[in-house]
């Protein structure tokens, strides 16, 4: 009886609260419109272009004002950090929404937060050149007390599993032969975050390697075990680039723990060494690997070759092990930053040709002073840069890909470039998935996930075959940085496997533990949508005429928001003479290109009008 009463009461409270929140939202929406109406043209544009307006009703007027001031004071890039999390409680949908709009609009910034990670994505489009730049920055804040298995100092695999609810697939399938040992060998990984950063680069390689030769993987795992069961680093490095990451790892942790510049330099030097080795091996592999199936054999010597440095690295790595375990208590923990930077650039035809013929150029350099390592590779007109820097305790990983493409937005992709870009984006995004995977599963180490049987379903049908020629280049470019190009060079067999693996990671992502998880999904699932006419760019929208609402206007209601115009409202007039609130129609036109009333194409008629 009493409980029933309280239940009723609870329900009543709930609906009351709901009503209240709706009322609040209504107030905020009205405030929003007022705010937008009172903005002058320049401010409105500024806010819209930086995606600061958000959703009516979600943010308060004060927040809008604050954003406006902030954006006026400085470039949006700086704002992101403070803004982060405030703008929208991020979830997969949010970022997908954003991505949907990004494809049409020009410059946007979006940020969000989940758990102890926060992300910020920036997209910039140059409508004239068609250059497109997309960068995603992930910040992992350790101090946010997302309970980490490491912090609990709980070495058992179960403890790590508890953290990986989302990764249940891997957990269920992972108990392969090598896993338990892996987990035990890494019970005290310094933090998941540290690993994560490197895993961006190293994980894919491992996956590929694994997929290509499961045998080999097992062997390697066994070797590792026998070599130094307590050394986590030996798990990770596999090729030169993996050494890089592992060294990064050593480096940072050692530096962090002891501040020993000597160690740091030592490591960096060895990095350089490895890079050279990598370069040479890459060339060799690239030449030979044109026949697909040799891939396995070729990569085997590579492994051996690079396992030597691994062994060399063991001592610092062991140090790491101990410092790692004490690290949770260490003060001044640093949030690593991971920056992925995608640039799609338009390249002159000649330029493209030339690069294409050269096919593969690689150079790597390492700069000891500011501890920045940059790798660049060029191949088939694709240019990929991977750089890592550590400054003031913040490690930054930047991976830049430049793709020659005539025009990536607005006019639609050409078949091949579209596929190439999709492939690449998929890689990036899947990279994030893997990254995320490591966020949660870092103490299972690289060999954690096992190729996933459900992959095939996730893989889009057209991905594999149609992208062969260009896709190879694209494929190679991320691979190059990390794997020395051998994977890119090898033909469809191994690559398909690796694709499948990527699909597998997508499957992890479906469980959605981080916002960008669904990114991969987004790009996968939206592949067939690429024929969709996009919305207008902001320049195109801005070219449409606007005016202020006056008393003697005939049509008095904006049909988007069904609100009557009031004097001083800014209206935008489409070529078909239909008018709307500026902020209402802009939003629609950023994703669509027709008039909401008459469905006439805004752009076509605009052109016609301009002719007349």
């Amino acid at each position, binding site marked *: 009886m009493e409980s029933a009463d309280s239940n009723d009461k609870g329900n009543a409270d709930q609906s009351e609260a*709901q009503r209240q929140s709706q009322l609040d939202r209504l107030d905020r929406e009205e405030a929003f419109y007022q705010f937008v109406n009172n903005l002058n043209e320049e401010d409105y544009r500024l806010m819209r272009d930086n995606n600061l307006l958000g959703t*009516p009703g979600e943010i308060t007027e004060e927040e809008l004002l604050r954003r406006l001031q902030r954006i006026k004071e400085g470039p949006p890039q700086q704002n992101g950090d403070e803004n982060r999390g405030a703008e929208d409680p991020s979830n997969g949908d949010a970022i997908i929404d954003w991505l949907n709009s990004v494809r049409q609009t020009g410059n946007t910034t979006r940020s969000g937060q989940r758990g102890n990670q926060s992300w910020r994505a920036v997209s910039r489009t140059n409508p004239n050149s068609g250059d497109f730049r997309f960068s995603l920055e992930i910040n992992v804040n350790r101090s946010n007390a997302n309970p980490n298995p490491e912090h609990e100092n709980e070495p058992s695999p179960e403890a790590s599993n508890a953290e990986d609810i989302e990764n249940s697939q891997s957990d269920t399938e992972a108990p392969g032969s090598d896993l338990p040992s892996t987990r035990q060998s890494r019970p005290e990984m310094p933090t998941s975050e540290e690993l994560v950063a490197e895993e961006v680069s190293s994980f894919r390689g491992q996956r590929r390697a694994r997929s290509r030769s499961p045998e080999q993987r097992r062997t390697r795992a066994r070797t590792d075990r026998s070599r130094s069961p307590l050394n986590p680093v030996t798990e990770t490095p596999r090729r030169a680039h993996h050494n890089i990451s592992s060294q990064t790892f050593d480096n940072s942790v050692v530096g962090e723990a002891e501040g020993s510049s000597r160690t740091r330099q030592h490591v960096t030097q060895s990095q350089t060494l490895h890079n050279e080795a990598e370069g040479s091996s890459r060339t060799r592999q690239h030449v030979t690997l044109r026949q697909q199936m040799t891939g396995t054999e070729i990569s085997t010597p590579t492994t051996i070759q690079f396992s030597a440095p691994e062994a060399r690295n063991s001592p610092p790595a062991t140090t790491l092990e101990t410092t790692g375990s004490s690290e949770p208590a260490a003060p001044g923990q640093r949030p690593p930053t991971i920056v992925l930077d995608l640039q799609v650039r338009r390249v002159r035809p000649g330029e493209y040709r030339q690069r294409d013929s050269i096919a593969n150029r690689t150079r790597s350099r390492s700069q000891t002073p500011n501890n920045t390592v940059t790798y660049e590779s060029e191949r088939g007109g694709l240019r990929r840069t991977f750089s890592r820097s550590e400054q003031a305790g913040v490690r930054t990983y930047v991976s830049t890909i430049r793709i020659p493409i005539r025009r990536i937005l607005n006019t639609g992709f050409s078949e091949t470039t579209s596929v190439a870009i999709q492939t690449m984006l998929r890689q990036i995004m899947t990279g994030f998935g893997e990254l995320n995977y490591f966020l949660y599963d870092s103490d299972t180490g690289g060999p954690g996930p096992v190729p996933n049987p459900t992959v095939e379903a996730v893989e889009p049908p057209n991905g594999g075959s149609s992208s062969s020629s260009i896709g190879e280049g694209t494929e190679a470019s991320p691979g190059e940085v990390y794997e020395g190009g051998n994977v890119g060079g090898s033909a469809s067999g191994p690559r398909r496997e690796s694709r499948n693996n990527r699909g597998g990671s997508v499957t992890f992502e479906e469980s959605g533990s981080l916002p960008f998880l669904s990114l991969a999904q987004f790009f996968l699932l939206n592949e067939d949508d690429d024929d969709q006419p996009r919305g207008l760019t902001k320049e195109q929208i801005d070219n449409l005429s606007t005016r202020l609402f006056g008393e003697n206007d005939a049509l008095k209601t904006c*049909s988007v*928001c*069904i609100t009557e115009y009031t004097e001083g409202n800014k209206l935008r007039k489409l070529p078909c003479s239909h008018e709307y609130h500026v902020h*209402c129609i802009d939003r629609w036109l950023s994703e669509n290109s027709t008039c909401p009333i008459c469905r006439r194409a805004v752009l076509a008629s605009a052109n016609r009008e301009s002719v007349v």
Partner: protein
Amino acid sequence: MQKISRLKRELHLLSTEPPPGITCWQHDNRMDDLRAQILGSADTPYEKGIFSLEVILPERYPFEPPKIRFLTPIYHPNIDSAGRICLDILKLPPKGAWRPSLNISTVLTSIQLLMAEPNPDDPLMADISLEFKYNKQTFLKNARKWTEKHAVQKDENSGTPSTEGSLAEGISTDPTAMQKRKQGDGSRKMKRPCFRP
């Protein structure tokens, strides 16, 4: 979105000047979950039927169409056994024709129109569509039967001839009716060229 304020206005309009044969109201006091009823128009096999619909407003409404489906089973070429409706304005361009100047009222009116004039060339239920095209009498008979069985309220159908199915379930917003419908439709094959995301 302009969601809440716009919705408020729409609901006000719906309550003050509803389109003929259509009612729409808030469900559970929620803003984004509405229920609607469409009366079957005269001279259609759905005459005298009261069809309940669920209207969910997505977060991005009105930049995204409302998600509408029938809760009452209906025998119709463009409405599948789960109540999903194949109608262009319920989808975003370019595949669909949704636009923010449409609203719940116009969409429900369109659905009413669709009920009166099925579009067999864009079928959701292939067999019903074939029946509609080539065997209109059977279609009409079946549709009427379904209407009587599922959409006609018991107490107000004094004049309704009772075939075997006059154990009307009233307005089947209740889950059991849903279940029943799903079971009953198990035999019908569903073909969905008309894909709703």
